[in-house]
């Protein structure tokens, strides 16, 4: 497990600009260490999306700072900021799939862009993850032609592909037409064993209950900011 001297993700009184993000303009503080899994409950998943953007350095801050892997997003130039985002795996409810290419391109695009991993190795890894998530292989049809169940699976594959250091997951389990919890938890555990941190946005408590023993902290994101909740 690779160690960091500090937390993997740290928000220190990060106050987002409301107009830009619709996030509550209050100081948000959060520390996620390597290997930790933090669950953030929020009723409004669009807010979760914006919060994930904030963690990815895509939201301007009025005060405070947001750091990932000991690097302040604000201190980096565009080139390094984009490169650093290559270390984040995201599952988002924002429509991100493009029909210009097949789903396989959408899945592997991030790794192809950020790394020099050979296509052969990348394909092998993608195929493994696809099989793990219950896909018969890497989907090559355009995302529009995939079933919603397979699209959820593809989203998971895309997020876990390339051994990301931070996983910003807007819960794929709730409302998923299929049960992918087994593969999802396996990948989650594997990533955490590797040293990755997980921020898991959920709408409902029931979703993460099967995994509750392994959850490091529980927070609630509401209009008044980020509140810690005792795990029961």
């Amino acid at each position, binding site marked *: *497990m*690779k*160690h960091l*001297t*500090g937390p993997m993700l740290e928000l220190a009184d990060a106050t987002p600009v409301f107009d830009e993000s619709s996030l509550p303009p209050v100081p948000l503080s959060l520390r996620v260490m390597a290997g930790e899994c933090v669950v953030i409950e929020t009723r409004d998943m669009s807010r979760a999306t914006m919060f994930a953007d904030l963690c990815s350095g895509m939201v301007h801050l009025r005060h405070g700072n947001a750091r990932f*892997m000991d*690097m302040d997003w604000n201190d*980096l130039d565009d*080139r*390094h*900021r*984009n*490169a*650093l985002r*290559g*270390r984040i795996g995201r599952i988002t409810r924002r429509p991100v799939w493009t029909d210009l290419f097949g789903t396989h391109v959408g899945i592997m695009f991030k790794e192809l*862009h*950020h*790394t*020099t*991993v050979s296509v052969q190795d990348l394909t092998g890894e993608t195929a493994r993850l696809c099989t793990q998530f219950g896909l018969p292989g890497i989907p090559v049809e355009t995302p529009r032609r995939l079933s919603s169940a397979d699209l959820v699976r593809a989203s998971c594959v895309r997020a876990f592909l*390339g*051994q990301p*250091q931070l996983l910003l997951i807007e819960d794929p389990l709730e409302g998923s037409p299929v049960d992918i*919890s*087994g593969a999802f*938890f*396996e990948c*989650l*555990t*594997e990533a955490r*064993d590797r040293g990755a941190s997980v921020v898991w946005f959920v709408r409902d408590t029931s979703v993460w209950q099967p*995994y509750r*023993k*392994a959850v490091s902290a529980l927070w609630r994101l509401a209009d008044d900011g980020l509140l810690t909740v005792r795990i029961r």
Partner: protein
Amino acid sequence: MVANEIVDPTEQKDVSLRQKFIQVVVPVATVLLILLAIGGIGWHNYRTTRAGVLKLTHELLQSVQRYVVQDVTGYMGAATLGGSFAQDFISHAPVAVTRGAFYSYGATMLRLVPQIQSYYMGDQNGGFLLVERAPDGKGLEYTDLQIVGGKTVFHHDFYDENGKKIRSDENPSDNYDPRTRPWYQGAVEKKGFSWTPPTIYASTKQLVVTGSVPLVGQDGVQRVFAINVSLNELSDFLDALKISQNGTAIILDSNGRIIAGHGFQSVVERSQGDPAKMTLDPATQGTFKRVYDTYRVRGVGSHPFRYDGKNYIGMAQTLPASDHWVLLIVAPENDFASFARQSGRESFQFSVIIIVLASVLAALLARQGRRTERVTKELRHEKALTNTQTAALQQIAVTPDLLNVNGEALALTEELAHITRARKASLWRLLHDGMALICEDSFDARQETHSGGFDLSRKDMEDFFKLVDAGVPVTVPVAAHDERTAPYERVVMRDSGTSSLMLYPIRGASGGHADIVGVITIEDAPDPLSVSYFLEIVASITAIRFAGMAELPEPDKMSGSDASAVQKLPPPRFDAALMQATTASGEIGQGMFPSVAVMVVTFSDPVMENGDDTSSLLPLIDRIASEVQEIAKRYSLFSVKVAGHRLICVAGCTKEPDPTAIWRVAEAALVLREACMLLLSSANIEPIFSIGMDYGPAMGGELGTDPRLFNLWGEAVTLAELMAQGAPDVGTIEVTERVYQALREHYLFHSRGSFYAPSAGIGRVYVLATRR
């Protein structure tokens, strides 16, 4: 961190390079600029001063020239003016006193003007008069050309300094005729003042020039008055003239012959007294030659020139009272500009001193800057180290069951390896009065795996144990080359390929007194002692854990007690396909059993060669079944059940926890594996089985009516099946963490990692290798 990234976001920016540039290049560049500025100012000053000095020199030389011209004019003026005076004075004198007037005038002038050597006067009748200084230099000598006895003789009258006649003398004139002399003819032809070329004066052997002027007396006789002027006096005058340190002057006549000048004596010697040969010698008087040539081309004036690598100022000026004589003055420029050069040189030397001082200061500044940078870096490193250690301590502190001796504290070795940047960190506990060391946990940072349970015996490596007993931290750079650690390297380190070893003692209470209770080994750490205080903390925590751990029973004793306990157990029951079910033992109840050891063996279909019928395997399967029954009896297993491809062996179905159950099942698993391996290999079949084990609570009981069959289900059974299915390779025994916890002191395991099981959540999985 992530391999193969095209852009590494953590890459160092070239800040350090910029800092180095600012710290080193800027001071050096500043010094260079100062150097250039000082050099430029010095050069400009030198040029300005030199130009000023040369201008001044020029004016000075012109003054000198005027002075020399004036002096020479005055020097020669005695002749020319004297001649003009004598012309009027003698021509108007009555014929009777002409002779007396000549003598009086001549005597007076000789007394007054030192450079005048003598006066002549010749007439058209061949008469000749001469007045000159007496040979003793004090009186005068009057000479007259007389006819005595038909022969012409020179009659000499000598007078002392008071005008008193001392004596008279005569000598033959050798037919001397003044009318044939150049001075006579020149004056008559020119009808005015004329000069003869320099000649050697017979009586004094001095170089003289003769100026002559014609005159006609009242008697109408043509006479010529001549004046001999000594050039030696002129040379002495020019020699005495101080132009500059090395400046010289020379006078040439219209034919380029040297009249007078510096070093005239050497010229006379060189020409052997012949005036015609007294010309400029290019070898020794090259500078004058150059000026004279320039003068002949360009006329009078100042002519700076460069000769033989030196700059000179040359001046040429005609002398008005002479026969087209020219005065040449040559002075090296250095005589005048040398002080400017000296001043420039001194300025430059001072500048160099200033530059050296400035350079030293700049170097000091740069050094200070670098040192500050280094110290800052060290401080930053220290801070990072402290942060890392604090984070590691936090990680250890939040580890559950840190001080629980039954729990695992894997964080200890992980953080040790992390902080020391070691390849491997291990915790060893001394057992049996220091006769053995058992590895409680070993973490391989490269493979990120934990292992442990293996032990070292004192009799195998006495020196290594002595090193442990010494109780001091020891660092061995190459463990294989040190005889104390070589056995350890061979047994433990060689597999992982590590070379350096560091031992840190674990002190704790043993037998009621402080003693060494174990040792921390760190392999391939760059500088483990730099974090010694962290090592001390981990050692202290480990000591507390060790103190709580009971001394392991001797393996023999354990086997003995187990064996005796096993004797009391009922015979095994074989269910289902393996054998007719036995009647349930009376003491076995139904419901929950707290500590059941379950072993599941899964067989897969064998790959048959040569199209053999699988039915031919039946005897083999039968033999395996017999072996299983035999093993079950030997280890008093409670139940052995076969279901399709799976064989389920159970022990410990008692209401009270049975500590021997898991041991018996593990032994049975090892023996069964060995037996199966043997049987399958003898039939030339690959090992097609894998074994899974779990240990924990399960539910079971007699089911049905005729026959009543015993069945067991629960988490232990499920996990044992999962272990068997998920075994990494055929023929391996995969066990859960609970089995590992129970057996790790007696068996060797290696960790396979953490796995998420849908029914059981996250757990670590181990592979049982063999007995210790």
